[in-house]
């Protein structure tokens, strides 16, 4: 077996040194009745690279890749171009095959990039500081909710009607397990500001999203003011990190905690994961933050270096007193994020964001021109919802038959919202005028 260096001779010699008759000796503590003789059945024996590659390539061939045709699917994951350099960097053995940087003297590569990542995320969100990543945007959102409850010592969490339904669900799951109350405002395309009225004296935090799941961008400043008046926090969510180049960021709207999905920068779609959760907060909340933090220090020679710090918040030190149970996070995806962001810089991100917005505007123009089609998102960045005269599921199926992936039906995310005729679609820098023409043309035929 190509991955196993020991030879039969090695094994015999090692058993001799150990003084064990055979490897079975090592398994003597296994209850007799539970010991397996021979191999586990129902599974094939080992195979060479070529065979494995053939099988998995065949499976891959049964999926329609985003680049294979006109593509407009969004709702929390976005098709962007990632520079080839980024993939080269994350495949460096020294980044790919190392562990969490517990031994800083031989992990400065990982640590310095984390420090740069934290700085980039803080700057993008316009917050004081950020952690070294969470699993993804949805789990970051859930952690933000419970953190807000710890900070405020309150138990009520209010979710906007535009928060990504998966984020809302993940948040409910975690909160309810901890005996916290979650109030979900009814699904609304342009309802983020309703959070302002929803905060009361029991409220730990209100959670709003901009751009929200329908693509609507909202200045949440009124919400943060209302929340703060009630002693509650604003958790500001985003699922499209590229929007931070153009749209008002959480820190400019008075957010206390900003969480979001970082996939759009540096990471491929990969059917939903692995992604990278971004988590930023105000300085004063730092000791309540979940996840790892990388900080600057010096070594014995006085040279600048970086280490993981404030770990007294974490499970491996504080165990049942920890702020979260997270251990492994999204290291390599964070590296991809920071590498792509390092190439973009402020200038590149602003330009990229503008291209995304213009592509979406062009798409909106093209779809609006079709009668029966109505854009229902009032203000948007690179994603919006539209109404079709037909059932959305049927429309998307017919588009798919034509090789066009036209977006997500609202009913898939919100089965109870009575939005069976609503499609949410996104455009990015990868969207060409031909793609838009193909989409509009096909949609016209269908409806």
């Amino acid at each position: 077996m190509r991955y196993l260096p020991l030879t039969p001779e090695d094994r015999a010699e090692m058993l001799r040194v150990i003084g064990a008759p055979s490897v079975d000796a090592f398994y003597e503590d296994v209850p007799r009745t539970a010991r397996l003789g021979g191999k586990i059945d129902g599974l094939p024996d080992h195979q060479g690279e070529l065979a494995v590659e053939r099988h998995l390539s065949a499976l891959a061939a049964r999926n329609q890749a985003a680049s294979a045709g006109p593509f407009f699917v969004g709702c929390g994951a976005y098709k962007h171009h990632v520079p080839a350099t980024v993939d080269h960097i994350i495949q460096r053995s020294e980044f790919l095959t190392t562990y969490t940087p517990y031994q800083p003297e031989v992990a400065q590569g990982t640590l310095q990039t984390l420090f740069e990542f934290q700085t980039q995320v803080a700057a993008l969100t316009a917050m004081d500081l950020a952690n070294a990543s969470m699993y993804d945007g949805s789990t970051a959102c859930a952690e933000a909710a419970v953190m807000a409850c710890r900070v405020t010592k309150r138990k009520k969490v209010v979710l906007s009607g535009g928060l990504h339904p998966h984020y809302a669900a993940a948040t409910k799951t975690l909160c309810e397990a901890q005996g916290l109350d979650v109030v979900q405002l009814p699904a609304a395309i342009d309802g983020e500001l309703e959070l302002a009225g929803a905060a009361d004296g029991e409220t730990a935090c209100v959670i709003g999203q901009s751009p929200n799941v329908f693509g609507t961008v909202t200045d949440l400043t009124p919400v943060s003011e209302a929340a703060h008046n009630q002693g509650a926090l604003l958790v500001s969510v985003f699922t499209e990190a590229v929007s931070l180049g153009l749209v008002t960021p959480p820190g400019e709207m008075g957010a206390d905690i900003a969480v979001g999905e970082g996939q759009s920068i540096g990471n491929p779609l990969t059917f939903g994961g692995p992604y990278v959760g971004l988590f930023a907060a105000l300085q004063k909340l730092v000791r309540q933050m979940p996840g790892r933090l990388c900080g600057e220090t010096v070594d014995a020679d006085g040279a600048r270096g970086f280490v993981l710090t404030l770990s007294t918040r974490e499970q491996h030190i504080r165990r049942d007193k920890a702020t979260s149970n997270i251990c492994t996070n999204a290291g390599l995806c964070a590296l991809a994020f920071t590498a792509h962001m390092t190439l973009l810089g402020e200038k590149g991100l602003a330009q990229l964001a503008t291209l995304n917005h213009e592509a979406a505007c062009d798409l909106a123009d093209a779809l609006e021109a079709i009668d029966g089609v109505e854009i229902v998102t009032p203000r948007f960045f690179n994603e919006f919802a539209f109404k079709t005269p037909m059932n959305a599921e049927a429309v998307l199926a017919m588009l798919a038959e034509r090789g066009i992936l036209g977006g997500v039906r609202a009913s898939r995310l919100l089965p109870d919202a009575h939005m069976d005729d609503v499609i949410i679609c996104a455009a990015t820098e990868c969207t060409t005028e031909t793609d838009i023409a193909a989409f509009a043309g096909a949609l016209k035929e269908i409806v």
Partner: protein
Amino acid sequence: MTMNNTGRPTTPIHGKAKTENETVSGSRGLLQREDLIFEVGSPATTGVDLPAPKGRKTRLGGVERRTQTGLPGLSEPQAVRHYVRLSQRNYAIDLGLFPLGSCTMKHNPRLNEKLARLPGFADIHPMQPQATVQGALQLIDELATWLKTLTGMPAVAMSPKAGAHGELCGMMSIRAALIARGESDVRKRVLVPASAHGTNPATAIQCGFVVDEIEANPDGRVSMDQLREKLSEPSDIAGIMLTNPNTCGLFERDIKEIADLIHDAGGYFYCDGANFNAIVGRVRPGDLGIDAMHINLHKTFSTPHGGGGPGSGPTVLSEALAPFAPVPFIVKDADGLYHLVEEDRREAEHSFGRLCAFHGQMGMFVRAISYMLSHGADGLKQAAEDAVLNANYIQARMRSVMTAAFDGYCMHEALFSDAFVADGIETIDIAKALIDEGYHPMTMYFPLVVKGAMLVEPTETESKAELDRFCDALEQVARRAAAGDQSLKQAPYFAPMRRLDETQAARKPVLRWIPEAPPALAAE
């Protein structure tokens, strides 16, 4: 796994050993100096070329960014150098043995990286019509079948994003089962051995349980007497969280009895599967009375650890817990097509809900199935046996110079205490001295039940020659430690950096770059 679990960060002896003959450039031979991107680049430049925007009027309704990020953009040559230079300051499996106990740092096959990048996997969207991702759904289903077969469990939840997330999944399932039994308010006590990984108690708390710690026996296993005692009044027992093989690298030989006792007490048995690598193909958790167990694909099944993730923690469930599994999950229809159950209703009416967005760590699934198919049933079993053999070989070779924490054979990792070490020298000094010898240290100060613990997990992908080279180096460092060699206290000497000051980092945290850090940004 975790470092310095004593919570006492290291403070180096400062300025004692300044490296002489400095260079002008700040580099030394091949080791290149590299500053922070904020010191290298400027916000006015960028490393990407994009078409010029048309300048059409926006539909943002004025919700626009007002402040600047000030983030630099590096030209591509600068960016490539930045990361390549920094990478060379990391230790990695590809450079040598990475004996972090409980972390299973094994070889990461490049075939898996290649396949995970096929457009058919890397370039598909989680929300595109399910008819257009049948290959992806089938792959997840195939992986699930492997996991269920290897563990002998009837069900598996695929969405957990890492081990700790899998623990959350398992404990949420238990909570849901208790709710279904109408006992969730009373059954809140979860037994957790003192040797458990930090995520176990942390997870129990995250799920609203209370933690009741059980001691370990002198032989490193759960104290059955104490367990019985704690179960004497079982009405409030929710369950137990036990790692097996445990964090001392030992198999809990009473595991079936433990399972029976817990079940009799009306509780459930959560098994932390982080150490599954030791027993794959030799025993199935399903035959041991386990109700839930997470599997770290990024340990047992070789998906790269990436300097701290991403991971993937599919969680197998017993008949008793299966109905409460989270959404989404995949169902194969009569017509051979696959579909996703995404809502906790109908087919999933008892599901405790959703853990996260979308369908789990697809990128890790591709790598894991590629690893499994490559090994096959025969190879996986051989891998487990070799992992255990390698650990026992190290234990046998080191016994004479170091203090083995327990008698007898170990499983996949060898645990030592600092009993053999002279006063004034600590486990951490041994760790840092190993760095000079070209090795990443073992896990230090964990598990807590052993004083000055050193937990060594070589994994099966080490050759005998590499093991011998490591043992020779460790042996000599251990002798120096036993002899009280004070030079250990300043190690490492040959690493890219000398020992770092963690105390200072925590006292005045500087967590982001700022031209010069105003005190405002140091945490109070």
